[in-house]
């Protein structure tokens, strides 16, 4: 061990400060631990639908969103996550208790029991809930960022999709329109090996998804998705470019989906060795911890303290979410239209037509 007082301090890159580094660590840890807690709740049948994990991808989710200007009053940047971007949403200010209520289908969840998991929205904090048809959020975020341009606001949008969704027409039409209009949009393509069970080679004939960028006339960058600070750097360059009027950037994030598409998926189509290799040698959290400790940017005690905080926070959040009520039957009828509930016909849920009794 060299004498610490003599070693030159390692400079933190990308104009980040030590507090940022610890915040990044905390968000990644929070994402991973929250998902582990959700697995337990799923086993207890408290999570009522499917459960989607981002194990191995938490670093890129958190680091990319961390490059955005985050506000709580609707004036900051906006992102639209995909199913494996729980980390991005937590960075934007989504609360674990909200995510838990969503997964547990509670009446006081952000989507009030009408939509599942991390499909929820808060325009004040700056995230737009996704829908399940893939690629659709690219045109939507094109519109969000088009409005930033129309109003002359210096705001930026970020949209996530897996490599599989680059095969959709929505992706193509959205990024092309955004490129033409020079929208301040960052498109993050997470190349994680599989779209459900379909391997990347069956999805596209391109060697690298970043190669699609020149086809749309937009900037492109490929980055090691499990290197937290490299992802932050790439996202930061793209966000700055967008904010300065440089238009769209496509970032290809190279990562790996270590678990199945959802909790039910046994990954029969994947090689155990490949999963094991990524887990043991290329885990974003392990790598980030090594970076933090190796450069002297954090101590074991710092990280252990944050881990304990996360565990406590989640204990409390789970207790609150568990005690939350389920929605009321009649809520089904609300929020189809602004001007009142849709009708409940007398042939459903009611006694025979009183007029005929």
């Amino acid at each position: 061990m060299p004498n610490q007082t003599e070693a030159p301090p390692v400079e933190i890159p990308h104009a980040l400060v030590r507090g940022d580094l610890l915040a990044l660590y905390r968000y990644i840890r929070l994402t991973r631990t929250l998902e582990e807690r959700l697995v337990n709740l799923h086993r207890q049948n408290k999570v009522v639908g499917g459960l989607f994990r981002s194990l191995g991808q938490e670093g890129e989710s958190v680091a990319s969103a961390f490059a955005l200007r985050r506000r709580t009053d609707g004036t900051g940047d906006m992102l639209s996550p995909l199913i494996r971007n729980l980390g991005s949403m937590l960075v934007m200010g989504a609360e674990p208790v909200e995510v838990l209520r969503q997964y547990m289908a509670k009446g006081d969840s952000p989507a009030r029991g009408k939509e599942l998991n991390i499909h929820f929205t808060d325009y004040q904090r700056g995230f737009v809930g996704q829908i399940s048809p893939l690629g659709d959020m690219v045109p939507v975020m094109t519109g969000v960022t088009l409005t930033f341009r129309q109003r002359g606001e210096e705001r930026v949008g970020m949209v996530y999709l897996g490599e599989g969704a680059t095969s959709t027409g929505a992706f193509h039409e959205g990024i092309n329109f955004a490129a033409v209009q020079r929208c301040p949009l960052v498109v993050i393509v997470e190349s994680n090996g599989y779209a459900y069970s379909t391997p990347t080679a069956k999805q596209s004939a391109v060697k690298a998804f970043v190669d699609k960028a020149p086809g749309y006339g937009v900037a492109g960058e490929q980055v090691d998705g499990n290197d937290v600070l490299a992802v932050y750097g790439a996202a930061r360059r793209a966000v700055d470019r967008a904010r300065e009027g440089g238009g769209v950037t496509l970032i290809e994030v190279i990562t790996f989906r270590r678990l199945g598409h959802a909790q039910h998926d046994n990954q029969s189509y994947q090689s155990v060795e490949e999963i094991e290799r990524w887990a043991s040698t290329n885990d974003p959290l392990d790598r980030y911890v090594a970076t933090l400790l190796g450069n002297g940017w954090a101590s074991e005690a710092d990280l252990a303290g944050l881990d304990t905080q996360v565990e406590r926070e989640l204990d409390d959040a789970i207790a609150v979410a568990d005690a939350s009520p389920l929605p009321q039957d009649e809520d089904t009828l609300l929020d189809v239209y602004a001007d009142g509930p849709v009708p409940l016909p007398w042939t459903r849920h009611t006694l025979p037509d009183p007029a005929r009794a």
Partner: protein
Amino acid sequence: MATLIHDRPEHVRLSAEGKPVTLLEAIREGIWEEMERDERVFLLGEDIGAYGGAFKVTEGMQERFGALRVIDTPISEIGFTGAAAGAAHMGMRPVVEMQFIDFISCAYDMITNYIATSRYRGSGGVPMVIRGPSGGGVRGGPFHSQNPEMAFFHTPGLKIVYPSTAYDAKGLIKAAIRDPDPVLFFEHKWLYRRPQLREVLPAEDYTVPLGEARTHREGTDVSIVTYAAMVHKSQEAAEQLQREDGLSVEIIDLRTLLPLDEEAILASVRKTNRLLVVHEDTRTGGIAGEIAMRVNEKAFEWLDAPILRVAALDAPIPYSPPLEDFFLPGVEDIVKAVRHLAAY
């Protein structure tokens, strides 16, 4: 407002000057006035800018309102429909033009899965309008003649408007733009420039509420419930029936299909006890089926005859004049059906 009106190009101040307008001019004035009234209103579509749109509905608008409020888009119905939704999330009031309404199918996923469900999912209402030239009778062939309204009728969260007169078209496009929910606004191209539909509209601002049908013609013997171009075919048939048979036909113009004005339909049925539904859309899965079911549920005992329908044939829309004329419902079809009902 007075100074504004003098600032307007001639083609969008016809009503302000007391001159008659076509259905197309009425829609154009409605959009223009909404853009003047509310800076959040903006337009997206193919060739709508300098060119003014395939039917010139947006003529002169880019010049007046600029390229950020009248946006020429790439050929990408998913792209610009989705973008409109995103802009609506940010508080804008987008109005999307489908160059021909036939192309709305390209954006079916975006409209039904994303836009229509947004409020319900907790992502907020999507106040936007999707509008475009619709309908047959102009030799447009299979992809420039469709009436796809019923493909969307089955989607909760949407509103569907399909006007038949210049007055309604202007009042409804304004109401649609101001509505907090997504509205599909169908414009019948056979009615766009029909000189018979020219009328003098109020010089001042007005709207026609969504969801309310209109009695186009009072009558006592048979009710025809219809909309769009078929209102005028039904009118022709009603005049012939009055003349030749002494029959008094009532015509209800739905104007808005979703939400459906059930009360107006039931009231007319209670009055005449005989119902014919006429639509230019194809027969199977057309709105006649839904209307018949509602009447069956709520006014069965008022009927003196089975409900009939006159609709287009269950085929794609053919191009050649004899084929298209055979395909579309005509005045003689309506006359025959009403006579059958009256004699039942």
